[in-house]
């Protein structure tokens, strides 16, 4: 297993929101998706995943519903709310700005 990269403070929220922008998903699915897409570079442990999900839910950016999973198990599906979509856009542009800034610094020096 490749060593997991430490996530920048706040980036986990962004990753979750972005993942959920595609479709409603349960917790395990989210973790799995992030792991796959990042080619196993990002491994989200349940110890940080679930508190983050709850935090986002409390903030009203995502909402949760119980539904049947792909293998007919009862699972809690999270989906973006309207506020969540706006938040995602805000965080994406934030991230872009930060990214550009960091790259600029790294290239200059």
């Amino acid at each position, binding site marked *: 297993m490749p060593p997991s990269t430490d996530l920048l403070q706040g980036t986990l929220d962004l990753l979750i929101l972005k993942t959920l922008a595609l479709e409603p998903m*349960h*917790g*395990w699915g989210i*973790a799995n998706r992030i792991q796959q897409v990042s080619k196993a570079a990002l491994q989200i*442990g*349940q*110890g940080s995943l*679930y*508190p983050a999900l*709850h*935090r986002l*839910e*409390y*903030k*009203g950016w995502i909402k949760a519903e119980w539904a049947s*999973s792909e*293998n007919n*198990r*009862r*699972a*809690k599906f999270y989906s973006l709310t*309207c*506020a969540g979509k706006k938040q995602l856009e805000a965080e994406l542009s934030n991230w872009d700005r930060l990214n550009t800034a960091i790259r600029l610094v790294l290239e200059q020096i």
Partner: protein
Amino acid sequence: MVREFLTRLRFFLSRKRPVDLDDELQFHLEQSTQTNIAAGMSPEEARRQAGIAFGGVERTREQCYEQRPGRLLEAVGQDVRYALRWLGRNPIFTTAVITTLALGIGATTAVFSVVDSLLLRPLPYPNSEQIVRIWNTFSPRGMNEIPLSEPEFLEYQQSQSFAHVAGFSLGTVTLTGTGDPLRLVASWGTSEFFSVLGTEPFLGRVFSTQEQQAGHTQVVVLSYKLWQNRFGSNPDIVGSSVLLNGDSSVVVGVMPRDFKFPSEDVDVWQPLAISPASSNLGNHYLNLVGDLKQATLDQARAEMKTILVRIEEKYPTYYNGAAGIGVVLIPLREQMTGSVRTTLLVLMAAVCFMLLIACTNVSNLLLAKAEDRKKEIATRTALGASRWRIIRQVLIENLLLFLASGTVGLLLAFFCLKILPFGDSVNVAQFGGVALNLRVLAFAAILCLFTGLLFGLVPALKASHSDFNDTLKTSGRNSVGSRRGTRHRSLLVISEIAFSLVLLAGAGLMIGSLVRLLGVTLGFDPKNVVTMRLSLPQARYSLGRTATFYQQLQEQVRSLPGVEAVAIVNQLPLSNTSANSSLEVEGRPAGTDINVADSQIISPDYFRAMGIPLVRGRFLSEADTRPAPMSVMVNQTLARKVWPGENPIGKRIRFRSDAPWLSVIGVVTDIKNHGSNVATKPEVYFLHTDQPSGLWADFRSMTLIVRTAGGPQQTVGAIRGELKNLDPDLPIYKVQTLDQIVSASVSQTRFPALLLSVFAGLALLLAAVGVYGVLAYTVEQSKHEIGVRMALGAPRAQILRLFLGQGVKWAMLGGGAGLLAAFILVRFMRSMLFEVGAYDPGIFASGVAMLTIVVLMACYLPALRATKIDPMAAVRSE
């Protein structure tokens, strides 16, 4: 934003079911297992690997829970609930803490509210900080505050340091024409009087400059109280006329409720007309008040001194180059608080000491409790409670205790203010009254929080600091005086003892002063004597008629049942007002030495009514009044001073060079005419007749003195009846027994003596409780050691000595520190003491003795309990 808030609110109000989270996590685990199986693991191995990857479920659950909005609030709420439960489970502890603290906080708040209203709160006049009273002084006669004469006032008025300087006098008038005649306290002020104070009238206006001219002064401004009580708060009062001393005056205004200058009971203000050409230097009746105009007090003082020099130069014959005349400026507040200031500050310090003792006691209790809870806290720490969480828990408990005590304390303070006899020694109404205002409430709240944090934090930190490993292993075994905790507690006890000793010394000194003050021989017999004051209006009573009236009144009252003697006098002893005049002695050139005496105007029966014995010569009689008053009596002090070693009988004196000579026909014993704590002043007794014989005195205002066989108050009604027969329009006022007057005259000492004794008593009690508590706790903690010692053969007496010795050590250390502190602090009480040195060895010794006895008594019970310990049980109990 709004939506986010609403979502938060929704979750805050309705919790998620914990089952939800469990199911969710379970699902995650199962999915992992499935994936592992799909990757080719055996089901057991798959589950094991999934579990390892998953990690601790509890931690996640806890963290998810902590994301909940309002989590901190909830945790604090939990702490509060837990604290309340815990306090409820320890009712004795809770009651002890709350009672102790409530006493401390209550007393401190009560005293502070008096300090606040007298010393801190601005006086109810707009310019109050600039207002200054102005007096002349004459040091050769020890006169500190001499009112001024009209020419002096006119000169001082020209000062540039003051925006305005006003003169005023106080007196009484009789209001008639609206129901029963009413005697009113009146103040006559010059044109600038209201400008100095800066207060706007509540209704109407104040005097105009025109009304200050002689002949135009028939206007009056009413006090709010009079307007309310006598005129039914009539809003149309301005413009109507009232009868004052039989003369009609137009009401021009009403002052606001809290305007009480120059005295608390003043009812009406009238203009005082002073002719700019006045040259009456002899009548010193004007009180001066001014408001500083951009000048410091020192600058004003310097300027007034130059004006005084100018006055002396302008009237050389009157001042006659007399050295020692000076002028003083006293800020209004200082003038009003006077000696009470020291008393209040001493009381405030005393009550703070008591609060410290109370807090120390409570801190001790909290420490002991924390010691008891070590195991509970250690267990909680072992289960993962953070240090902050434990400190918060203990701190919340302590704050709750202090808040509860604060509330009870405030109620107590409120109650205290209702029953304390402040009125006797402090004229609080003049300052707008004492009340629990916002500032006092804030003071109490800060006191509460501050003491709560300070005295609650140390035990909280101590509690959280404990090494739980250690605590859980040892079971609190202890030996006598070996632990750090014990040293901390000993320190607290020692400081309590020290504070108590300071209070005991202070109270002792005050009580000593009071006892000596009460033991002073007054020189007259105040039992069964009632007095009342009368003022005859000048308009209807000539001097001749006045004399007849008083003679008739005395005859009528003398015939009442139960009356033994009746007399009149212009000023009662101890009344703080006296007219003194300089007198000329026959055969000695004027100006050789200055003889000043109080001149008392009396009727012949005065000495019998007051119970003042004769020393030599004879008493005055009715016969001495005809054809003209030729005879006077003097007191021993005067006889000794003016005619040392000579027989004063037959010697002659006079009050003015143009007045007839008066011969001394008798000498009476000295009485304490100016108060128990003031040396007797020379006194001349002059008969009340229709001829003033050179005396500046008001023959119309007299005090009636009636000595009865018993129950003097009961004759007052009958006396009123007799008066009504003589003149239905005359009010009587200041109805007091002589006992009441004597008692009021020592209230300046009695009040602080009483309060300090109460504080000292409470302090001593609290210290005793503290000593008892700490020693009892030590005994409890060292049961095991005591058991071992006894098992090894230590006699019970030795155990008793061990613990009593501890008490003696505390008493010595605390007593020593207390003596040191007392020696430093009692100096500030010097002005309050009477015939007692600030370092009176007897009082200090009895304070130390009392303290030692109380400490030993408090130690005896726990020490005795230590000797009763069954060694077998104690050793086996672990």
